C-alpha cells in the first residue's frame, strides 16, 4: 500500500489492520521524522492495538524513482511478497504552479507502482482516484473511464491521465483493477475526527481567522482596522463580517464523511472481485446556503451570505470579499458544481449492507468544527507533537 500516511490512506491502512490483513506500507522518507515514527504516530491516533500492529511492515520508498529508491534485492523481495496493491499516494494540490510536483506524484509515481505490480505476483490493483476525473462538465458522470480533455485544475487532470495509464497497463498485464472515486471527504460522521483540514475546512478556517482578528481589533485596539473593512459588532455579541460569497448556480458541494468512505471502500474491495469503477459520493450535495447558515450559526457571525452569480456585482466587492475570494479561488469550481455523479454500481454493493452516506447536518458540522478547533486545525493532532 502506498500513501499510508495520508488522510484516506491512513484510514484504509488502519481498517485493513483491524480486519486482520497483513499490510506492507511503502512510505516516503522524510528528513525530519522517520517513516516508522510517522506511521506509529498515526496508528496511535487510530487506536490500533499492538497485536494488529504486528501485521504491519513499513518500508521507506521513493515513488518518484523507477526503482522506488530501493536496492535490487529489496525490490526483488517486494515483487515476491505482494498479492494486492492499494495505491493511495497522491499529490492533492490544485495549484498550477505546483504542476511539476503534482505530475511527478500522480503520473510518474503511479507508473513506478504499476511497474512494480507488473513485475510482481500482484493480481489485484486498487486505485484511489477522485470523482473529479470527470473534468469540466455539467450533468451526469458515469462510473467508468470516460475520455475528456478539459479540467478544472492540475489535480483533476493528472488523476485523469493517471487513470488512463492505469487502465491500459492493468489490461495489458492482466491485473484486475478497482478504481475508487470519492468526492470531497471531510471528518468522521461519528465523532467529527479528521486528520486533514483542507477542502471543506479551509474557507471556514479563513472565516474564523478573520473573526478572531477583528474581534481582537475591536476589543483591544478600538476597531479602527475593522471599521476600514466594514466589520462591526452585530447583535447578541455576534460579529458582522460583510462577505458575499459567489455561490454560482450549481448543485452545491458533494461531501462525504471519512467513516462512510472507509466503509464503502472496504465493502467494495471485499465484494467486487472482477474489478470496476466506483463513485463514493453523496447523493445529496450540500448547498452553499446551508453551509453559510451553519457557519454563521456556529461561529456567531452576521453578514456572510451566498449570492447567485447573476446577483453578484463583482465591481462592488469590498476588501474582505476580494480577499476571501482570492483565498478560496481554488475551491470555487467545487462550490458551483453542476456535475452529477452516478453511483449505481457503488449503491448496489452498499445497499446490501445498508451502508448509507450521512447528510452533513448542523450537528455533524458542529462536531467537525469542534474537533478542528480543538486540534488547532491539525497542529496539535498528536498531542504536543506537530503534524
Amino acid at each position, binding site marked *: 500500500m502506498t500513501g499510508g500516511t495520508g488522510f484516506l490512506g491512513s484510514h484504509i491502512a488502519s481498517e485493513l489492520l483491524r480486519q486482520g490483513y497483513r499490510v506492507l506500507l511503502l512510505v516516503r522518507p522524510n528528513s525530519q521524522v522517520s517513516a516508522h515514527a510517522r506511521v506509529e504516530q498515526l496508528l496511535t491516533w487510530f487506536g490500533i492495538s499492538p497485536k494488529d500492529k504486528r501485521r504491519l511492515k513499513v518500508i521507506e520508498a521513493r515513488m518518484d524513482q523507477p526503482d522506488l529508491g530501493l536496492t535490487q534485492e529489496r525490490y526483488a523481495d517486494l515483487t515476491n511478497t505482494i498479492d494486492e496493491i492499494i495505491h493511495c499516494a497522491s499529490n492533492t494540490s490544485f495549484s498550477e504552479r505546483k504542476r511539476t510536483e503534482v505530475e511527478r506524484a500522480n503520473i510518474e509515481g503511479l507508473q513506478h507502482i504499476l511497474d512494480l505490480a507488473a513485475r510482481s505476483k500482484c493480481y489485484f490493483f486498487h486505485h484511489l482516484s477522485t470523482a473529479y476525473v470527470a473534468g469540466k462538465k455539467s450533468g451526469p458522470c458515469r462510473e467508468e473511464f470516460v475520455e475528456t480533455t478539459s479540467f478544472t485544475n492540475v489535480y483533476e487532470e493528472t488523476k485523469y491521465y493517471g487513470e488512463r495509464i492505469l487502465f491500459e497497463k492493468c489490461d495489458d498485464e492482466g491485473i484486475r483493477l478497482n478504481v475508487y472515486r470519492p468526492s470531497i471527504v471531510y471528518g468522521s460522521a461519528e465523532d467529527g475526527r479528521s486528520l486533514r483540514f483542507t477542502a471543506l475546512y479551509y474557507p471556514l478556517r479563513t472565516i474564523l481567522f478573520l473573526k478572531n482578528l477583528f474581534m481582537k481589533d475591536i476589543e483591544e485596539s478600538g476597531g479602527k*482596522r475593522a471599521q476600514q473593512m466594514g466589520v462591526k459588532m452585530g447583535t447578541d455579541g455576534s460579529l458582522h463580517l460583510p462577505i458575499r460569497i459567489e455561490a454560482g448556480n450549481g448543485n452545491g458541494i458533494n461531501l462525504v464523511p471519512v467513516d462512510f468512505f472507509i466503509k464503502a471502500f472496504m465493502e467494495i474491495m471485499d465484494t467486487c472481485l472482477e474489478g470496476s469503477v466506483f463513485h463514493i459520493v453523496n447523493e445529496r450535495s450540500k448547498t452553499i446556503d446551508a453551509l453559510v447558515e451553519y457557519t454563521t450559526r456556529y461561529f456567531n457571525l452576521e453578514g456572510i451570505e451566498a449570492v447567485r452569480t447573476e446577483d453578484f456585482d463583482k465591481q462592488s466587492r469590498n476588501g474582505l470579499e476580494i480577499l476571501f475570494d482570492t483565498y478560496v479561488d481554488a475551491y470555487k469550481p467545487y462550490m458551483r458544481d453542476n456535475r452529477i455523479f452516478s453511483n449505481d454500481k457503488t449503491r448496489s454493493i452498499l445497499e446490501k449492507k445498508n451502508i448509507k452516506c450521512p447528510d452533513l447536518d448542523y450537528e455533524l458540522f458542529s462536531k467537525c468544527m469542534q474537533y478542528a478547533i480543538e486540534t488547532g486545525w491539525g497542529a496539535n493532532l498528536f498531542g504536543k507533537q506537530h503534524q
Partner: protein
Amino acid sequence: MISEQARQIASQCRHYAMCKIDFLETGLCPAGEKRHYVSYFPQGRMDIYSALANNLLPLTEGLVDIANTCTLCGICDKQCHFVTGMRPLKVMEALKRHVEASLSENKAVTKIEEDAVLKDLRKIVGTEWATNDPAILVTYANDPFPLKDMQMPGYVVLPRTKDEIVAIVNMANKHGLPYVVRGNGSSVFGIVFTDGIVLDMNRMKSIAIDRDNWVAAIEPGVTSFDLQKEVQKHGFRVNVAEPAATVCGNIVCTGIFSTWSNAYGVAADNLINAEFVDSAGHVFDLNDVGAPNIFAFRNEMVPPPGICTKAHVRMYPTTKDEQGLLVPLGTFDEAVALARDLSARRIGVALAVLGGHYLSTFMSPSAALADKVKENLTKSLDINSMVFMVGDRYARDAVKKMAGVTIDDKLFRMLMLGLPRLAEDEWAELLRNFEGDKYAYEIFCMEEMYPLLEAALSPSPETLAGAVDEDLRDFYAQLYSRPEMTDLVWLNMFRIISSRMARHKHVIAFILYVPLDRIDIIKEINGLFKKVGDKYGIENEFGFLTPMDFGKRAILEYDYYIDQTSRSDAERIGKAMTEIDPELERLSADIKGIKLMKYILSQGCARKEHFLYR
C-alpha cells in the same frame, strides 16, 4: 576568577568594529572615543578577556588602565545586541572584576620597558599614541578567521598625519621592521597581521566636503557610516561598504561594491583621486605624472600600492521622492531575470537579488525570530527570492508595472514592525494551505490586505521590541520609533543591519564577479558552494547578487557560516576552500566576466573594465 559565561561571550566577538561607530545614537564607548586604540573599545576588551582566560596576558599598566577606564555605561550592550544578539557588558564587568581582584591581591603590575623602536615611534606621534603593552598588542593579534592563528605585533601606533605616516614608514625601513595598516583597527579575513608594527588609522578621521564638485575628501580613519552621515547632511550619498569599515581601506583592498553599484559602479568608478605613502616613504597622488598606474589590473596577487592617506570620492545626488521597493519572487531565476532587466533599462539606483536568509536576518532583532521568519517566507509565503531596489517614483512605478507584486515602503514598515506576529504559526498555517494558482505572497501584498495586515500584525515599535530581552525592550521601542530604522533607503545607505548576517555564526563570504546574462553559470557557482558546503557539513546560504554595468556583470556573494571557536569547523572550512578554489579558477579561466575577489585584493583602485572585460 574567570567567568565562563563572560569567556564564552568574549570568544564570539566578530570583530566587525560596530562598537566603534555611533550607529544607534547611543554615543560611543567613552574610553574608546578618547583613547582610540581598539583595546579601549568593547571589541578590544572582549579580546583581552579571552586572552586572560587563556593565561596569555600579564597584569600590565595598560591592562589596569583599560579596566579602570570602563565606566560600565552599558552602551556596548545595546550596540552589540543590535548586531550580534550578544550582551558584552557581562564581559566588561568580568574584566574589571578580574583586574580589581588581581590588584587587591597585590599582584605586581608589569611595566613594559620602552625599547629603541618604541622610542622612535613616540618621537613621531607622541608618547600616548605608540605602545608595546601586551594588553593593547593582543587586541591587534586575533581575528575570527578560523585558518589564521594568533600573531602578536611588536608595536601599535596611531598616527595623526600623513607626515607622521611617512616618518613611521622610514623608521620601519630603518629598523627592518614589517608593518601593516588597519583602517579601523580590525581584521576579519586573517590578512592584516604582522610581528612588526600595526598602524591603526583611528585618529585620522577628517572629512572635507567639496559641495561644488560633489566630492568628499577623507582621511584613512573615516568609516563608511561617518562619511555617509556627513554627506547626507548635504543632500548627497556615497557608494560605501559595511558601516564600520573605513572607506580608504575598502578602496585599496577590494574596491567599493554595494547594491548601489548598479548605478555607481565599482572600484575606480567612485574614486576621483587618492594620496599614498609608498613602501619607500614617498608620497604620491594619482594625478602625479610619475605616479604608479594603479588603475591597471594584473591577474595575480599583488601588494598594495602604499598606505592611502587621503581619498577623494564621488558624492551622488539624491531625490526627495526616493523610496525602497521589494519584489518577492517564487524562484531565483525569476529574480535574476528581473534584476538584469531593470539594470539594462537603467531602473533603480540600488538594486540586488536577496536570499531569504539575508532578508529575515536583517529585519529581525533576534536570531530566534529570524529563523521563524525565514521559514515562513519560503514555506508559507512562497518567497524564495527577492529583488530589492531603491528608486524615485518613476522608477518604482515602472517596477510595479513590470513585476506586478511589490512590497512598498508602507508595507515593508508594517511587516518589519509587526514581524513577531508575522512569525506566528496561525498565519503560517493559513497561508501554507493556500491552494490557488497565485503565490501566497501575491495575496499578502494586495492593497486590500493592508487593513487586515495591520489588524493581524499590530505593527508598532513595541511589537517589534517584544522580540528582544525584556530589559532591552524600552530601548528597542524607542529605537524603532525613529522612521529611518524602518526606511529601506536609509537602511541600505547605512547598512547597519547587514552585519546581522553573522549574528548566529561567523560568516566566511565568497565574493566574485559574474556575467549576469549567464544565469546557468551563476546557478552552477551557487550549486558548487552548496555542494561543497553540504559535503563538509557547513551551513551555507546564497547571499546577494547585484547587477552592474547595465546588467552585463554582477557581484555575487555566497556565505558559509561557522563557529569561529571550533577547531573542527576550521578544518572543514579549510578543506572546503581547497576544494572550491580550483573549480572557481577553472570557471574563471573559461568564462568571460568571472573574476575572483582574491585577485582584486590590493587592486581595489583598478578600473573595472580591466578586470571584468578580459
